[in-house]
């Protein structure tokens, strides 16, 4: 509903029918007071056709096409709003894809955690392909803790509680390089617009410098590669001032090639930053978070990173170098080769 109201607000700049305007004004009032009960759940079915009509209005569609300029518009707006009537009906059951796109809601504003098991199979172990009769390998239990930086404010006192974790997975959305949002000004006089990628870089730096995370392996996941791939051909990477010195090799034959170079460049920027502060190697992985396969691979990669970290103390020769998962992105079998 928030998508709809935000779109509704912005489409005021385009001419539209007065009834739809009245409806969107009403939605805006509800959002302002925070009283969502005035709309959910009773009114949803009744107003769903109206919501869909607002959505299909050419003014709305035109505004949505300019969504890159609108900072607070969720990019899932189209996915849900185009099916407003279907979703509001009593028989609707969310598909797995729907759940992924809704991004979940955490109770309260705290962290969320999940425990899962991954077997210890690795492509390098002997039992992987050959010996099908081997006894099942032990499952290692992992706990993944999601800490939403937005809910946890600028203070880093809570970070001390995570001193004993074995790895930190830091997620950055690649497509954020031209996105802005409001950050509170350090002098406390208000908030200013800042580039989201720069904001991520600063948070990343704060984390790696924190005394708690000394000697802690970091895995950087560069997410939303699909959006990035499409965007990088329209908006130059230097929309983010940190990427000012990006000069792709010309000529590039197709969109994928430029995206690949841009991705490699961004990964190198983070790796250099990490190495300059800690003197160690940063582990980077690429992902499209709504595509389960890439996330599955990202976790397997993280598992390998954890193993290397354990093994490095055992003075095990040639451990990291032989691994199927190389830290050098260009040789990774999971990145499309041209």
């Amino acid at each position, binding site marked *: 509903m928030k998508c709809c109201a935000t779109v509704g607000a912005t489409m005021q700049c385009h001419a539209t029918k007065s009834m739809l305007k009245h409806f969107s004004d009403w939605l805006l009032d509800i959002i302002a007071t925070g009283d969502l009960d005035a709309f959910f759940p009773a009114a949803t079915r009744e107003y769903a056709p109206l919501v869909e009509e607002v959505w299909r209005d050419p003014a709305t569609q035109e505004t949505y096409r300019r969504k890159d300029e609108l900072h607070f518009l969720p990019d899932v707006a189209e996915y849900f709003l185009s099916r407003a009537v279907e979703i509001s009906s009593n028989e609707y059951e969310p598909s797995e894809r729907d759940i992924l796109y809704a991004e979940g809601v955490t*109770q*309260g*504003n*705290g*962290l969320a*955690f999940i425990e899962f098991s991954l077997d210890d199979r690795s492509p390098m172990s002997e039992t992987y392909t050959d010996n099908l009769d081997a006894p099942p390998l032990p499952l290692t239990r992992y706990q993944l*803790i999601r800490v939403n930086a937005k*809910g*946890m*404010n*600028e*203070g880093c*006192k*809570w970070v001390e*509680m995570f001193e*004993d974790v074995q790895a930190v997975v830091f997620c950055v959305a690649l497509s954020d390089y031209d996105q802005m949002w409001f950050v509170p000004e350090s*002098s*406390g*006089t*208000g908030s200013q617009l800042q580039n989201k990628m720069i904001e991520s870089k600063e948070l990343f730096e704060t984390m790696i410098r924190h005394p708690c995370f000394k000697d802690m392996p970091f895995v950087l996941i560069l997410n939303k590669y699909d959006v990035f791939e499409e965007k990088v051909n329209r908006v130059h990477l230097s929309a983010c001032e940190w990427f000012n010195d990006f000069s792709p090799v010309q000529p590039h034959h197709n969109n994928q090639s430029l995206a690949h170079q841009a991705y490699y460049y961004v990964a190198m920027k983070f790796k250099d930053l990490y190495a300059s502060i800690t003197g160690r190697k940063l582990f980077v992985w690429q992902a499209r978070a709504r595509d389960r396969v890439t996330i599955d691979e990202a976790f397997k990669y993280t598992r390998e990173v954890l193993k290397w970290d354990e093994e490095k103390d055992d003075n095990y020769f040639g451990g990291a170098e032989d691994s199927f998962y190389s830290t050098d992105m260009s040789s990774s079998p999971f990145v499309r080769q041209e």
Partner: protein
Amino acid sequence: MSVSELKERHVAAIETVNSLREQLKQKRRLLLDTDIAGYAREQGRNPVSFGPTDLVCCRILQGHTGKVYSLDWTPEKNKIVSASQDGRLIVWNALTSQKTHAIKLPCAWVMTCAFSPAGQSVACGGLDSVCSIFNLNSPTDKDGNLTVSRMLSGHKGYVSSCQYVPDEDTHLITSSGDKTCVLWDITTGLRTSVFGGEFQSGHTADVLSVSISRSNSRMFVSGSCDSTARLWDTRVASRAVRTFHGHEGDVNTVKFFPDGNRFGTGSDDGTCRLFDVRTGHQLQVFYQQHGDDEIPHVTSIAFSISGRLLFVGYSNGDCYVWDTLLAEVVLNLGSMQNSHEARISCLGLSADGSALCTGSWDTNLKIWAFGGHRKII
């Protein structure tokens, strides 16, 4: 008035406030001709002396499998509740060392725990941003776990500290990483008052600790990462009664002095300070130089019943007993036999003042008792 004009006026106003604050600091420095220790020494007072058997470790409470973050005594009987990173609250009988309850928490990242005045309930909070209340007398479910009897949700950040209002089982105050303190009505689960926050003048960074005055339960003090402690009146939530500056680092812990006219604070700058509630003056600094080593942070403090002794836990495992009158360390529990092997994260005095309990990152709690009779000096 345009937005930029408003901004300019705002910046100018902040500068005025800062310069006034500086003037105030100078004035206070002028008026403060001495501190407590200086005055006491002039009067010929001598520090408390401790013999080797005066304060000894008489119990070691083992059972937690993770770092102990917080502990609290019951106001009457000798029970202690402790919270640990292993995701459990354990209720101990301090005299026998037996565990009477082991509560598995829905969120393992717990930072604080507290006993209700009647000793029937315990409250805890942490990174889940919720303060959970458990009634110790309620039946356990099929897995033997106590279920939460009330969840106080509403904070937008982690719950760093909680304390029940003295003699009121139905109200408690929490401090949070969202820069506010909240007074809760437990029976309804709703917030009675919010101290600080977006539109009110309160702390400007995470609030780490609260302490409610025993002599006047309408007054409480809070300590925060903004290096200040603030005094609040629960009837006036809109602004703090007074803000106490002086510390140069996060204020990790605050505790009211037994008579309610003063309170102590402990900070990341390695010092403890004693502030006067009525005048706002800093009465004493408790700090001992450590040479070139990194300055240990103060994690927790507690006063003895008379207030003559101040117990301070540090991040390097030391636990100093300060003579508050003369600002001298009279004992270091960290150097004694049976001392903790890691950071002391919390400590508390029993209701009758006869025992001190310390909790540490080495997963143990230790009870120290005063042996023998003390001569009144």
